[in-house]
């Protein structure tokens, strides 16, 4: 029940924010913030319940004709990701606070609806419902990019939408096939996660179905070769949009892989794992290289996101405890670090109205706090021990090493590339001689007090993850153990 409340709070809050604009243009952000805080409070109540099994479960008839039910529940993993969503939601509103002034009502409406969709995705246990939320996330995001984006927003928004939509339809086909197989095997239609887990599929058919899911999730993650929507979307989206996109939306892809793609088709995934891990390694290295070549700071960060999510996919398809925990930790840590970097880059663009790094340089003298913040998060991104990303990537690689040594070694080079591009950004933007030849630096001011609060909170989060990750690992442990045992039993049955 809590979850239903949570989602509806977000939906309603969005509508209220939109309406409140008519009263006063400054209301929407307040409404949105309060809504967000309320929902965070609701989320925190989830922590109270034990993380070992499904909590806050709600299962209501929805479309009996197809055995579709409105089935929400959260386990440790979902709870973690929901909390991340809530946290970044607040951050995103903070990022938009000054930046979005025209039509703010509709903006916050979209922001909150996206988040509602995301929460739905993280908690839906009926595949139809899941797909439903999966799509609901997109449209507000499309609006955010298309309305408040930058010079090339139409292209970016369109690309984002079509990529996710088309692959989404492939997933829909797979879902329907699965439900149909359930119908054949058990005599009644059902889209419920737990029912579909019992469907025994094998051979090429299950491989195709798995690929349907994989296409959707790999696009959202994103992984090679489906990544090319991300740089455009990120470079064009407003700051808050990038924050949500990088921090939360990408994670839905990884979540989908962990929750659906692999458990529903263990054998097919086992066969497919080498390919997937290769793709992951390719994304890590290739996108790191492309990132290094970028001059648009947001594009650069976007490519680094792809590179880092590669570690997540590597971990997922290595499919052992360390690897999965690593994947989850990377999701969380990258959620913070990438979001923070986009926020800072957005702040920079808001100040000097350019994203072209070739025009920048030597900002440290002008904006020491911002520079330090960027330094901190770049360092986090390149996997500095003591910060969250290290824990995630180290565990992921540690697990992957047990699955495939050569791929892991290759992936490890990503650590080197990461340092190359991260330090390059620092050098390009903040070190060197101060140059403002090509832009007006009259508004180039250091982080405001509010920005500092957000940045500091994210720093704190990363340090926490880095120094005492246990508090997060414990939450996801039960889930991961369950998944491992389930898939093991099935695959072993298959072998015998």
């Amino acid at each position, binding site marked *: 029940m809590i979850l239903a409340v949570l989602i509806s709070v977000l939906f309603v809050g969005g509508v209220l924010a939109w309406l409140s604009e008519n009263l006063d243009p400054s209301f929407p952000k307040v409404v949105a913030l309060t809504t967000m805080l309320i929902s965070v409070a609701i989320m925190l109540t989830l922590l109270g319940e034990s993380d070992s099994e499904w909590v806050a479960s709600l299962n209501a008839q929805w479309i009996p004709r197809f055995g579709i039910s409105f089935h929400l529940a959260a386990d440790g993993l979902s709870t973690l990701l929901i909390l991340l969503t809530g946290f970044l939601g607040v951050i995103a509103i903070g990022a938009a606070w000054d930046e979005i002034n025209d039509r703010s009502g509709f903006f916050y409406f979209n922001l909150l609806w996206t988040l509602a969709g995301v929460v739905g995705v993280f908690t839906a246990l009926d595949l139809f419902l899941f797909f439903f939320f999966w799509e609901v996330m997109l449209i507000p995001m499309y609006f955010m990019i298309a309305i408040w984006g930058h010079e090339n927003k*139409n292209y970016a*928004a369109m690309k984002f939408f079509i990529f996710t*939509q088309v692959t989404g339809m492939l997933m829909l086909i797979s879902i329907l096939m699965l439900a149909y197989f359930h119908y054949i095997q058990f005599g009644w239609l059902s889209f419920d996660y737990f029912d579909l887990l019992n469907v025994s599929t094998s051979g090429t058919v299950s491989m195709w179905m798995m690929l349907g899911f994989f296409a959707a999730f790999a696009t959202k993650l994103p992984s090679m070769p489906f990544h090319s929507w991300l740089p455009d979307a990120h470079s064009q989206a407003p700051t808050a949009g990038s924050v949500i996109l990088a921090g939360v939306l990408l994670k839905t892809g990884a979540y989908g892989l962990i929750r659906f793609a692999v458990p529903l088709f263990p054998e097919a995934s086992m066969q497919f794992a080498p390919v997937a891990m290769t793709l992951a390694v390719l994304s890590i290295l290739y996108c790191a290289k492309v990132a290094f070549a970028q001059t648009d700071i947001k594009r650069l960060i976007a490519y680094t996101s792809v590179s880092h999510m590669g570690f997540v996919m590597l971990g997922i398809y290595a499919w052992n405890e360390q690897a999965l925990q690593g994947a989850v930790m990377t999701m969380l840590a990258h959620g913070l670090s990438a979001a923070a970097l986009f926020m800072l880059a957005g702040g920079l663009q808001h100040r000097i109205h350019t994203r072209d790094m070739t025009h920048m340089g030597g900002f440290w003298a002008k904006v020491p706090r911002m520079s330090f913040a960027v330094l901190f998060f770049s360092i986090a991104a390149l996997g500095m021990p003591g910060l969250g990303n290290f824990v995630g990537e180290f565990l992921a690689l540690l697990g992957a090493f047990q699955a495939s040594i050569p791929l892991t070694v290759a992936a490890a080079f990503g650590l080197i590339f990461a340092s190359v591009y991260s330090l390059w950004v620092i050098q390009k933007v903040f070190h060197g001689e101060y140059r403002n030849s090509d832009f007006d630096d009259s508004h180039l001011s250091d982080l405001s007090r509010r920005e500092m609060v957000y940045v500091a909170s994210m720093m704190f989060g990363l340090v926490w993850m880095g120094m005492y990750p246990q508090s997060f690992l414990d939450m996801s442990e039960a889930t991961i153990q369950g998944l491992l045992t389930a898939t093991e039993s099935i695959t072993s049955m298959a072998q015998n």
Partner: protein
Amino acid sequence: MITSFDDLLPLLPLLIATATAVIAMVTVGIRRNYLLTAAIVIIGLILTSFVAAVMMPYTNQQITPLLIVDQYSLFFVVVCCIAATFVAILSFPYFFSLDDEREEYYLMLTVAVIGAIVMVSSNHFISALLGLETLSMSLYGMVAYPLHSKESAKYPLEASVKYLVLSGVATGFIVFGMSLIYAQTGSLAFSDLTSDAAQMNSLGENYTVVALLMIVAGMAFKLSLAPFHVWTPDVYEGSPLPATTFLATVGKAAMFVVLLRFVTISNALEFESVVTVFSLIAVASILAGNLLALLQDNIKRILAYSSIAHMGYLLIAIIAGQGTISNEAITYYLLAYVIMTLGAFAITSVVSSSEKEFDSIMDYTGLFWRNPWLSASFIAMLLSLAGIPLTVGFIGKFYIFMSGVESGLWGLLIALVIGSGIGLYYYLRIVYRMLLPVEEGLKYRIAGIESITAYGVISILVFLLLLFGIYPAPLMSLIESVSSVI
């Protein structure tokens, strides 16, 4: 043939509609009054649909070999009449300022509805042809209606002539096909097409196939399926908006019901070749429709092309005919299609009038910021056409996918995915236009008092769009029971 009152009773909707037409005609004859005629027609249509709705649960009766009045036909009687009612309501402001006699338009509308009613309840070639022609005849008139007026917005004449000649040809094919069938089987009932009698004194199977395909071709033309689609955009663009709306919704829906009955009753799908041809037509329509709409700037033409694609989607369900849910899929999707097409055209016609139609997407720049409610509804309609969740269009597409999966039509499903992928592009083009900042110098006809009702229609449509999109369960069970009779 008609003997008892029991046989007349099921025909009540038809009779009411006809009566409406007669009464309207008489009133016009007595005294021209735009409002009055409109009122009569609208009331008559509402009455018809109401009666049909009431009768629906009990009635399942074959009246003469020509007409079958069962839940399914009554369901579509309701749909067509309500759609027609909406069209009538929308027509009112549109023709309000027409510098010509305006009343006869409603007569033709009513007659067209009668044709539609006959079509949806026909399971015999003669009745099908009768209904079809009644519909088309009056459509020629509706399309050409404002052609007297000096500053009529479009090219009604050109549209009408094109439509007349081409659909004449199509009718020719249908009729000739029928004659061949008749020669083959000696009967004009759908049911006897592939019956033993046919096989017994056969002139050869190919013969039947040829005949079948000729009929199919004719129907495909009326449904503007590729490769018989070329007329669609011109007729849509040329005719006055309400006529386009009627043609695009009622016309298509009635025709498709005929196709469905024809295919299911006559088991035409027993012939491999027919299935193949259908599949090719479906793929061709999906691709052609979406590709043609891709860079189109005229909303009427965009909707025309997209309708081609949508008919292609529906055809997938027809081909999946053996499946358990394909009939439901078709029914649901048809309903969805009617709702969203009506909605889209309704919004276009609210900002338009017979003097000036705002049908270029440029005209919609920034609409979202000057008339949020209207453009929000438009966005809803477009997203529904694109098959995005929260809307009825998504559920419809879900049905189609389901039936496709059930019968394992992977090739067609891939075509469907590709088509929808392309489709997103041009729907979003319109959406993006509306989201752009307001451009000055764009003058909309400020919808006057007479369009209040039009806004009402739009609101109802949006409501239905969302209701059937979010909580489709009741409608589904209704459709399940309704389409079980076929």
